[in-house]
């Protein structure tokens, strides 16, 4: 096989793995948007906050220690214990549920029936607020996150591809694990929404608020539920990204990559978010590989947005949305 083709295959595989992460973030957006019509700008910051909280809990950091020390003049920063990864993840999930409840109770509940743009503005406010809270609680320095996921070259794939093609593919173990976990998460979400009482209620709310009320569904409860689910998805995305490149502010920027994903996949489609994420992931890697050198490189910065723009012009409903026919 020609070398170029082999490289392209390797790049595609790596792109798929990167796409999984975009898909996860987009999934968080879709969950909230479907159930409440809110475009949650804070989804990326939620991932950052979740990852920072996880690190903080694992390392036994004292939350708000800077603040506490500034006021009381102490020097405490750590409790002096370490929490095992799994327990810390469970605790972080609880924190994300609490966050969901607070967001609903303190902000969104008071904005029911407001214009979408107002809800959107509220989530922008939430994003900056949460970023500040995250810094204040856990500090703003770059943290390393290690929950014990395998990392580095997958030797089996390297060996197999070397034997087959005479060229060993470089696939990171972390990417493989991330893909498997993301896959499981999506399956679990699908099962939840199809086969549980709360899942059925969630689909009902996503479809028609008035009808949902009439069959006894509390909208507030469902909204806390979707914000919790989105928080959980954010945590998973935060763990993957954090394990790869450290927990730092750039984590909240992957949220911006989720935007083109949503334009491809449609804002209300869970399969759309997945496929959209994969297309963007593969697309930007492959584009950079094929045309990057000719275009001066760094095409990954803009490729996704240009692709989304093309979609907006030629297929505004996304890949899976129904064609919009204007009522006259």
């Amino acid at each position, binding site marked *: 096989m020609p070398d170029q083709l082999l490289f392209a295959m390797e790049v595609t595989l790596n792109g798929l793995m990167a796409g999984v992460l975009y898909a996860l973030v987009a999934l968080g957006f879709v969950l909230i948007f479907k159930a409440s019509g809110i475009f949650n700008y804070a989804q990326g910051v939620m991932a950052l906050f979740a990852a920072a909280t996880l690190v903080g809990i694992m390392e036994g950091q004292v939350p708000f220690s800077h603040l506490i020390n500034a006021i009381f003049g102490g020097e405490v920063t750590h409790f002096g214990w370490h929490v095992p990864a799994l327990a810390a993840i469970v605790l972080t999930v609880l924190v994300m549920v609490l966050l969901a409840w607070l967001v609903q109770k303190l902000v969104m509940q008071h904005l029911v029936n407001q214009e979408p743009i107002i809800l959107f503005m509220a989530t922008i406010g939430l994003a900056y607020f949460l970023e500040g809270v995250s810094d204040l609680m856990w500090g703003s320095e770059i943290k390393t996150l290690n929950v014990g996921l395998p990392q580095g070259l997958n030797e089996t794939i390297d060996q197999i591809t070397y034997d087959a093609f005479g060229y060993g593919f470089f696939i990171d173990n972390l990417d493989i694990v991330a893909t498997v976990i993301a896959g499981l998460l999506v399956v679990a979400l699908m099962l939840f929404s199809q086969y549980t009482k*709360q899942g*059925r*209620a969630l689909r*009902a709310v996503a*479809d028609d608020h008035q009808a*949902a*009320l009439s069959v*006894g569904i509390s*909208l507030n409860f469902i909204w806390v539920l979707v914000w919790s689910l989105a928080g959980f998805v954010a945590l998973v995305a935060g763990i993957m990204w954090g394990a790869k490149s450290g927990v730092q502010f750039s984590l909240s920027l992957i949220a911006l990559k989720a935007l083109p994903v949503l334009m491809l996949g449609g804002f209300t489609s869970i399969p759309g978010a997945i496929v959209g994420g994969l297309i963007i992931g593969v697309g930007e890697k492959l584009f950079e590989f094929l045309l990057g050198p000719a275009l001066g490189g760094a095409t990954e910065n803009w490729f996704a947005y240009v692709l989304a723009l093309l979609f907006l012009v030629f297929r505004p409903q996304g890949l899976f949305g129904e064609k919009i026919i204007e009522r006259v």
Partner: protein
Amino acid sequence: MKDMSEGYVTEDGRKIGGVVMEMKNITLRFGGVVAIQDISFDIREGEIRAIIGPNGAGKSSMLNVISGFYVPSEGEVWYKGEKRPPMRPYQVAQQGIARTFQNIALFEGMSVLDNVMTGRLTQMKSSIFSQALWKGRAEAEEVANREVAEKVIDFLEIQHIRKTPVGRLPYGLKKRVELARALAAEPTILLLDEPMAGMNVEEKEDMCRFILDVNDEFGTTIALIEHDMGVVMDLSDRVVVMDYGKKIGDGSPDEVRNNKEVIDAYLGVAHD
């Protein structure tokens, strides 16, 4: 008038019980518009109670007050002998009051069966965790609910569209699916807002038959809105007549039909 405090027996031999719901001096304002003005009436167990009146009379508003979608500006709602505190619509639904809407509110993206199953949500007890942990119990509950849903579907003769997404159904069938969803909740009181509006003659006859059968077979208390006098006379045990937000008549279909104010309201106002 005869004393009805303990209920009465209808001409066709159905036993009507005591008062299950009572509206006391309800007034509802929207800014300057008075949609309901100081109206009182009651609903008895097992009866078919109609609310009639010309368009804009305030009938839907009254149903919305009963189901918690509107909060009355003044007045009290009594349910099962107790004064009801202010409640959200979902709480009212959980108390056993199911409803349909004048403009149909269904889950368009879901199948007929799924829509009817949402009607069972008020009857499902297991929490998220118990569903995850005791799969067996959750399954048993799902099966039991499924049985009720299928029974309702059979009863309303919509088996042939069980798996069809509701969005694809014609208007008349949608109305019937909405009734099925409300019925699946096995409600104490069933509220129907113009269940026959916009239907052709044949569909209207079917709907009439279903409403009578539901009441007969399950003893369900029904309060329904209709502005076609003829239909109401055939269906209901007692009728409240509204006009411009006021109650202008209350009694048996015959009493109401011969009420001068009612006749005036109906002759004076054009129907649509």
